């Protein structure tokens, strides 16, 4: 029964996504979704997640404007693969398929622009330190790159190239720096405090609209999270809550600051995970903005939903390793 429910869920999810002729976005959630924690040498982790980002809030700085005529949505399918090469070194790849839409409802008229396709990917090499901050603590650092697999030449129904924000890709290599710190405590070993920092140094697309250049603003994200583990009705669950700070610099077009881009955001992310099996974890989280301070006037996230499955394939134990 359980397998059947799981199969149905995945099946309907994929059906829904394949029908989703969606359009615009606030970007593909690359930085949000990298950084699987290492387990042990030889472990392979595979994640498949769906991310829905809804932007329907128009801000001027911190001021929310009374205008909900503009809707931007990004649907993303995210595939993570992490392999722990050694006890300390692991490598992670994040691959995306993205569907973006921009829908404007004004004057009894609705206008839609949309694009979809394979998005950019991230490759991250990570190093693990144990007990850096005392017993039961972990520190992971990583460096990687965003690989420009996505198209930047998608057009609308009239053959006009969509602007950078609506393209599945960026046509640039970015540098990605990542750290993940966590600590468990003796008073409750299942309780964990963690923090993740991500910095993305973006490259410049020198072929934007054929003869311009475009650079998305460098981006910094910091998370502070709290996780615990409970047994509920014989199921192991991990409720968590984290707080996210995101800073994005202004984009640059032909070398000049592009106004009405960039800003600062703080959000809270309740998360719930459940172990279907010891090596299959279902998780879902919703990101709710607490504070948005955008440059100029911008659509800013209204909410984001991420849900999916993580599979852990542990290495086969050598009989000689078992004492």
């Amino acid at each position, binding site marked *: 029964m359980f397998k059947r*429910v799981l199969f149905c869920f995945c099946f309907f999810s994929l059906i829904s996504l394949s*029908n*989703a002729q969606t359009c615009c976005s606030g970007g593909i959630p690359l930085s949000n979704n990298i950084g699987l924690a290492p387990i042990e040498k030889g472990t392979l982790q595979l994640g498949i997640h769906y991310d829905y980002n809804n932007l329907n809030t128009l801000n001027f700085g911190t001021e929310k404007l009374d205008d909900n005529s503009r809707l931007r949505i990004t649907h993303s399918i995210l595939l993570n693969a992490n392999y722990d090469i050694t006890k300390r070194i692991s490598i992670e790849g994040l691959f995306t398929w993205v569907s973006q839409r921009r829908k404007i409802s004004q004057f009894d008229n609705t206008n839609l622009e949309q694009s979809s396709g394979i998005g950019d990917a991230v490759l991250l090499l990570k190093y693990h330190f144990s007990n850096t901050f005392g017993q039961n603590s972990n520190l992971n650092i990583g460096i990687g790159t965003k690989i420009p697999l996505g198209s930047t030449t998608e057009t609308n129904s009239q*053959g006009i190239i969509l602007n950078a924000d609506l393209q599945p890709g960026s046509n640039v290599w970015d540098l990605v720096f990542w750290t993940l710190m966590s600590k468990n405590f003796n008073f409750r070993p299942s309780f964990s405090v963690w923090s993740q920092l991500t910095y993305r140094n973006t490259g410049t697309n020198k072929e934007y*609209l054929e003869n311009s250049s475009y650079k998305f603003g460098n981006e910094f994200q910091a998370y502070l999270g709290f996780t615990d583990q409970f047994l509920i009705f014989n199921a192991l669950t991990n409720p968590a809550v984290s707080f996210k700070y995101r800073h994005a610099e202004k984009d640059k077009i032909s070398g000049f*600051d592009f*106004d009405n881009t960039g800003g600062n955001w703080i959000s809270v992310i309740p998360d719930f995970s459940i172990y279907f099996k010891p090596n299959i974890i279902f998780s879902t989280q919703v990101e709710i903005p607490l504070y948005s301070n955008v440059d*100029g006037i911008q659509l800013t996230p209204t909410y984001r939903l991420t849900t999916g499955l993580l599979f852990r394939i542990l290495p086969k134990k050598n009989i000689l390793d078992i004492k």
Partner: protein
Amino acid sequence: MKKTVLVIFGIIFIISCSSSGNNETPNDLPNNNGNNNSANQEWLIPINEVKDGGPGKDGIASIDSPKFEAAEFQTHLQNDDLVVGVIHNGEAKAYPHAILDWHEIVNDETVTINYCPLTGSAFGWKNIVNGSSSTFGVSGLLYNTNLILYDRKTDSNWSQMLLQCVNGNLIGDSPEIVSVIETNWLTWKSMYPFSSVLSRESGSFDLEHYDRYPYGNYLENHNFFLFNVTPLNSTLPHKQRVFAIINNNMAKVYQFSDFEGGNAIVDSFNGKNYLVVGNENIINAFELTDDISHLCYEYCFDYTETFFKDNEGNNWSIFGKATSGSREGQNLITPKSLVSFWFAIAAFYPGPYIYSE
């Protein structure tokens, strides 16, 4: 427990997908006239030079129910603030740049005022499309970084500075132009103290919103372009405001510096003679037809409606209307003209002549 979780989240997930209206395609979406412009792929301008500006169609909302206030009661405008002025059906109206920067189009009763903040160009078009009234909206597209409007009757796209429908059912049509001038608030209210002014309450934003300029240092930085311009002519500073007469796809440019303190010049361009009058804040031009070509003109603006006079004793307004004298009530013919940034004139009308004394 696991099954319950799966079912709950499965339902949430499916709802979230369906709430995005994901079965719509652009062609399914209604517009208010039932036309579908995507069926018409022909453009009079190179399609690879038509750019998606970013906000999308109607993402910059036109003002369709403008509200006005009397000039004497308005409190937001400073003397140096630029306005677009029009006299239509005997009524003087001013449309502040500060509002036009955010809305670009004002669909007034019979005239559409359209203004492109990226090229600094303003026009008045009659609200007539294909023989009946229509409003215009911001298409979200740009050509040479200049506004492309669309009409809500046929969904056709119109290039503002080309003054032509460039795509859609009305391709090749030209708008009927209503003469507008661009000047500062002090000049306008001196000439037309009983003018009404577009109110900030017309738009969807808070009143203070219009104190902000949406494009950063775009006006000051002559090399800052949001979209490429072809050809880019650097003879004058790119963002310098100039006045230009347009005649058969050619342009002649007049710099405000040539009119410091007031000037009235007779000039010829492309086979026609023109009277060009102005000062450092305002310029307008008129065709010198046979019945008035023998007159001598003199600038005489004294902060009233009278802007220049002739040796017959007639006084004329900046719109070319005789306000007193034997020709009182006569209107001079205004050519196609506009105020815009230099780069835009030079891009749309390559190789423009530049007036020099």
